[in-house]
């Protein structure tokens, strides 16, 4: 009986998370079709999906696995570039857009997952903050590596160089796909809000089911006490690697959406650098470490905020920073928590029902 009650609670919580995403989707679709949504909001729908996925993905590493990753933008970068290369190369040969985009998503997820495994195998065996250090380096290496890569394609296949476009020796009708620092231009704009939402739902399905599965409990056991987990026979590296790889591949899919939402893709410090990784970490920390629903909400709010503050012109980023600090204090300072508990709606409603029962 006790077990059933507990099960119901998690199922209910998961259901609320799915319902929240679906309701948000329906509301936005109705508003968009009614034509009352501004172009800014319409343009922000796909980026919102991307950042929600990134936050959920990082929360899996930070909150559930309990390891710090400072290079999540690196996985996003891998997913973005691998899928964009595929899409640009096959834009003429695979004419079915859904098929091409589906393959691109798979390629992005697999490429990021491969890098997740490569990084994870040596690093996740160690104790301490090594994952943070290595992922930080990984993110920077990926970004700088892509800036010197030249990749072209002609009738004979792919040509690769790290010097310049001239040394690609492209044949007749060949085209340059990655042009060094100029990146990839002309990626088809296939990412839509609907696809973004569907991928978010799939992501949530995978992550939430993982968390509440046998494997998820093993992962959380490792997070809470590694020695105890090891002593009951949990294969530490296997479960750590599982969580980290899934996290990386979701980040890769986020990158695929990013690449197919803009026609130009360059690896700048701004979009795939250290700052972006920290940005995603901020989403996770503000939303609550280990709280998937919180990550979704904070990613949405923190992505919307700088855009909604555009009216403040020069003070925009200043206000944004202040809001971040205030939110952090409101969420975590002991006084604020006390205050919230005192004045929470839930408590108020509970009090009401208790009073009613008593009456």
């Amino acid at each position, binding site marked *: 009986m006790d077990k059933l009650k507990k099960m119901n609670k998690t199922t209910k919580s998961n259901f609320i998370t799915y319902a929240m995403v679906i309701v948000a989707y329906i509301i936005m679709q109705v508003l968009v079709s009614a034509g009352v949504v501004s172009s800014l909001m319409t*343009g922000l729908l796909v980026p919102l999906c991307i950042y929600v996925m990134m936050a959920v993905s990082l929360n899996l590493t930070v909150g559930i696995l309990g390891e710090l990753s400072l290079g999540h933008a690196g996985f996003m970068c891998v997913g973005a570039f691998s899928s964009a290369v595929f899409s640009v190369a096959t834009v003429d040969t695979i004419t079915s857009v859904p098929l091409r985009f589906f393959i691109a998503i798979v390629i992005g997820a697999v490429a990021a997952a491969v890098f997740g495994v490569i990084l994870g195998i040596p690093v996740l065996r160690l104790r301490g903050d090594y994952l943070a250090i290595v992922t930080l380096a990984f993110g920077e290496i990926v970004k700088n590596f892509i800036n010197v890569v030249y990749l072209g394609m002609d009738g004979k296949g792919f040509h690769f160089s790290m010097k310049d476009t001239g040394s690609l020796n492209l044949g007749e009708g060949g085209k340059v796909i990655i042009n060094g620092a100029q990146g990839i231009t002309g990626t088809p704009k296939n990412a839509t809000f609907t696809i973004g939402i569907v991928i978010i739902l799939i992501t949530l399905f995978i992550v939430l089911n993982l968390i509440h599965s046998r494997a998820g409990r093993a992962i959380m056991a490792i997070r809470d006490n590694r020695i105890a987990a090891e002593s009951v026979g949990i294969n530490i590296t296997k479960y750590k690697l599982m969580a980290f790889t899934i996290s990386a591949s979701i980040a890769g899919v986020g990158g695929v959406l990013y690449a197919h939402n803009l*026609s130009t893709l360059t690896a700048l*410090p*701004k979009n795939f650098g250290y700052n972006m990784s920290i940005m995603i970490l901020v989403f996770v920390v503000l939303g609550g470490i280990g709280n998937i629903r919180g990550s979704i909400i904070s990613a949405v709010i923190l992505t919307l905020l700088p855009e909604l503050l555009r009216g403040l012109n020069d003070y925009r980023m200043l206000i944004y920073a202040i809001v971040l600090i205030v939110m952090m204090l409101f969420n975590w300072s002991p006084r604020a928590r006390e205050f919230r508990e005192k004045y929470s709606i839930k408590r108020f409603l509970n009090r009401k029902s208790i009073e009613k029962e008593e009456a």
Partner: protein
Amino acid sequence: MKKAMSLILALSMAVASLTGCGSAASGTAETESAAAGTTFKIGGIGPVTGGAAVYGLAVKNGAQIAIDEINAAGGVNGAQLEFNFQDDEHDAEKSVNAYNTLKDWNMQALMGTVTSTPCIAVAEETNKDQVFQLTPSGSSVPCVQYDNAFRICFSDPNQGLKSAQYIGENGLATKVAIIFDSSDVYSSGIKDKFVEEAPNQGIEVVAQEAFTADSKTDFTVQLQKAKDAGAELVFLPIYYSEAALILAQANTTGFTPQFFGCDGLDGILTVENFDTALAENVMLLTPFAADAQDDLTKKFVETYNKNFGETPNQFAADAYDAIYAIKAALEEAKATPDMSAQDLCPVLETAMTKINMDGLTGEGMTWTADGEVNKAPKAVKIVKGAYTAMD
């Protein structure tokens, strides 16, 4: 009771914020109908925060001067210009957001974006929506790949080509070393074309030394390689802040070749704590020099100095010319302010190819249908801490 009050307050706040959104939406609709037909709405996009802010601010200020001048002189076709500049933080994604914000503002023509990568992303959107776009400084090739996009500056390959030709034709050197930023679109774009053109001009590229945005403080290795390769001239297709360091470090290692740069070097004399004596004899190919003696430049520099307290760089001049080019095109097309952006776009496209304009960055500027500008590059040499025109 207290609880009830707080709940009611919370609810009313939530409702207020929701209805606030609703009224804001209808509010813009009202202003749209009121303002339509009286002013031309020109949008601008560029970085005014972050690492590239210096370029965005220059463009914003330069454009504002042009807008004020035009409005003071009676506007365009009898209508005033309205200018709205949005920040893109030098990021493609933010740039599209900025563009959408301007679209909600009912922008009729776009002056932007300032930097190349965001420009490519925004050009995709303007082409889809058919909005006229004129970038002051987006120099990479795909920025103007669509019919609706034009630019004021030279394209990157064009600068590389012109630099190689200038060095070759004037016999400045036969052995050239290049130090460039491989992580920068502008720098690598110029370098690629320069290397391609060099053999045609009898120039031998003896060293190509790269640095990246993450390691742009120590250039001794690159300089040493250039020196060992026997370079007579070092070509610097980079921005002035790094070039200032290169000049200082070349001086300490005793390496004294001829230095030659592109428009990115403009501004080197204003770098703080930089000994301008080091820049003596540096040559650069730039369309704008702040101490040129023609009336237009003198007036512009004076106004800029008065309003913003600094000497304008080439980006400000490009923006100033961009606004005047839009004005000329609007006049050529006999456009009226009640036309929508979609109506204006095709007429401005044809008008752009017909106008002939004298601006800060060139005389008799004309545009081709593929968006490129025709103007003569000016080479200047730094003599006694000031730009001196070369011929």
